[in-house]
């Protein structure tokens, strides 16, 4: 284990970190039924390393019931963004953990029901009293049953009973579509990865009720980081890969088409598995790109024609195979895809390239890829940086959307007049009031959109949901399609109806893939037309500058808004320019 990964390191680092002014803020609460010393320290350090200033609240030992059930508790006063409730099987089962076999059959269902009822009550009370996300760890399925090998012959043996409680948690708390607040972390995933004998140390348990051993605390906290990244909206969007010895074994320029290793032998198998993992992430919405020093023709031939390749040309949204500088290529990929460098992960087997990119572009997450390719698949599956709370339809379509984007670029290159290009695109914009299908996506857009975002306000699903049902707010989104395909829901705005005369633009954003084609102008026109219909005189909004939203800086001015103090104001008696190449459909 590397020194910087052990708990002693995190405990000491936690003492030295100080909040920064510009960092993202996050309030995290921990509740548990056992000792969780070291958890909050590790999380604060891990957050700090990712640019998040994390403040924590740790409930007293085994006080989780009181903290959740009492409305005036320290937990609710703390106002967390994320709350982790770490439950454990021994505590929940009590004596039954040891002697479930002596419980009469007819009493078993009642016990399960009671335990589920207790957890549900905690969930409901929590939802009533807090806006925080609540992540509950599921119960560890015991590796030992008091029934011995006859466990499997019993109705409701010990393990089956614990699974039953877990399934109820997954179904009723984790999976409910209407529930945007509660998530279940599958603790058995952690146990099966690292093993109970490692995670549970009897000596530490007897000494201090430590149920996750000291050595494994940092690994457990790392599991929870997936939720932190997702809720803070710092999930990675794009994976950039090198080719030689990263996607296949060997060097195409030296070994040639027939001798590089993909499939067919042990080394080749490791690369195939790595490619399958990349493809799975791509299907989930992570964009892939290539950054490789090679003769283009040699390398692209492998991608197009090698029988064992998993990833093909169309899986990559951007391909840079040339002899240019790798940093320059990364910058170009970032520009062409309109994805910030800080949303990129770089895989390259060469330690010199890794170091060079790390030094030159510190925003890019450079994976510490070892020499041994058999480790690649494991490394990528253990990364938490790609986690999102809920995979939306847009995510699963994203690969195809970027492919459309690549083809749009090709057309743009061919047509010399930009207006002519726009006309040929046949853009259609669907304007729609937020509904239960679009709300998760709208929240995701507010969390992830950085460039064309006038106010950069981040909203969780339940907030968007509340706004959309409020009489004082308008929440609408736009779905954009053109002759190359559907771009999905890519823009949204939230309007606050201040009074009978004035509306305020609370949020206005458009995914950077779409900006610059007139869709943003169409969206603003929608707002103004709607305001006119409601006899509203003035629509106004702020531009809140961030380090990233410069592309939206002059937007109000271009559309004829006038500056009044901190606001940009549009008088609805005036006419707003409206792009004519876009067809608008309304579904309000």
């Amino acid at each position, binding site marked *: *284990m590397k020194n910087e990964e*052990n*708990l*002693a390191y995190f*405990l*000491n680092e936690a*003492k030295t970190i100080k909040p920064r002014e510009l960092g993202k803020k996050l309030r995290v609460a921990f509740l548990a039924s056992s*000792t969780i*010393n*070291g958890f909050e320290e590790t999380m604060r350090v891990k957050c700090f390393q990712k640019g998040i200033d994390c403040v924590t609240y740790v409930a007293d030992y085994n006080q989780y019931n009181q903290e959740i059930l009492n409305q005036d508790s320290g937990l609710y006063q703390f106002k967390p963004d994320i709350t982790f409730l770490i439950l454990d099987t021994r505590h929940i089962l009590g004596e039954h953990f040891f002697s479930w076999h002596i419980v009469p059959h007819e009493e078993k269902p009642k016990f399960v029901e009671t335990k589920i009822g207790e957890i549900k009550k905690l969930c409901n009370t929590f939802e009533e009293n807090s806006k925080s996300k609540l992540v509950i760890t599921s119960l560890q399925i015991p590796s030992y049953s008091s029934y011995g090998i006859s466990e499997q012959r019993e109705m409701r043996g010990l393990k089956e009973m614990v699974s039953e409680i877990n399934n109820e948690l997954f179904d009723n708390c984790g999976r409910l579509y209407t529930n945007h607040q509660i998530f279940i972390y599958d603790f058995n995933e952690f146990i099966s990865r690292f093993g109970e004998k490692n995670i549970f140390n009897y*000596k*530490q348990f*007897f*000494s*201090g009720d*430590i149920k996750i*051993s*000291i*050595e494994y605390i940092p690994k457990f906290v790392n599991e929870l980081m997936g939720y932190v990244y997702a809720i803070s909206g710092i999930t990675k969007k794009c994976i950039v890969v090198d080719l030689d010895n990263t996607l296949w074994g060997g060097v195409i320029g030296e070994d040639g088409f027939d001798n590089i290793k993909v499939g067919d032998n042990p080394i080749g198998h490791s690369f195939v598995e790595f490619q399958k993992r990349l493809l799975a992430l791509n299907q989930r919405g992570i964009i892939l790109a290539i950054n490789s020093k090679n003769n283009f023709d040699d390398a692209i031939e492998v991608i197009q024609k090698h029988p064992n390749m998993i990833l093909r040309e169309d899986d990559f949204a951007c391909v840079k195979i040339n002899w240019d500088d790798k940093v320059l290529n990364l910058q170009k990929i970032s520009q062409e895809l309109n994805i910030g460098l800080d949303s990129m992960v770089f895989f390259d087997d060469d330690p010199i390239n890794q170091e060079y990119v790390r030094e030159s572009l510190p925003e890019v997450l450079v994976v510490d890829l070892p020499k041994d390719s058999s480790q690649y698949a494991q490394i990528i599956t253990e990364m938490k940086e790609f986690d999102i709370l809920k995979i939306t339809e847009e995510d699963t379509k994203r690969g195809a959307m970027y492919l459309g984007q690549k083809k749009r670029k090709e057309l743009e290159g061919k047509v010399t007049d930009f207006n002519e290009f726009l006309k040929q695109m046949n853009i259609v914009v669907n304007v729609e009031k937020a509904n239960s299908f679009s709300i998760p996506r709208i929240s995701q857009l507010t969390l992830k959109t950085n460039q064309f975002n006038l106010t950069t306000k981040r909203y969780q699903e339940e907030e968007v949901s509340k706004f959309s049902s409020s009489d004082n707010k308008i929440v609408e989104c736009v779905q954009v399609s053109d002759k190359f395909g559907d771009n999905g829901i890519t823009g949204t705005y939230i309007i606050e109806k201040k009074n009978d005369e004035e509306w305020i633009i609370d949020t206005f954003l458009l995914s950077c893939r779409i900006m610059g084609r007139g869709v943003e102008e169409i969206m603003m026109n929608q707002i103004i037309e709607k305001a006119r219909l409601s006899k509203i005189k003035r629509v106004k909004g702020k531009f809140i500058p961030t380090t990233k939203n410069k592309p939206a800086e002059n937007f109000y001015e271009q559309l004829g808004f006038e500056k009044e103090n901190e606001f940009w104001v549009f008088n609805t008696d005036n006419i707003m320019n409206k792009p004519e190449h876009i067809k608008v459909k309304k579904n309000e």
Partner: protein
Amino acid sequence: MSEKLYQIISKVFNVDSSKISDDTSPENLEQWDSFNFYVLLDEIENEFNIKFNLDETLDIKKIGDFKILLEKNGVKI
């Protein structure tokens, strides 16, 4: 070896090794709390590749006791 032990202690308790002696104990070292002590035990076990018995760990009252215990387990201090 003694030096290695002191290095671990200084790292876990985050104090200069010059401030550590055989008589260092929870009474005279503020950083030595019950949880830190388990972290220290874990680090020492890993570093010297040994496992203490539970009763052995309960007898540790000061740093000097670690040395006695390590020697008992065949580690030359």
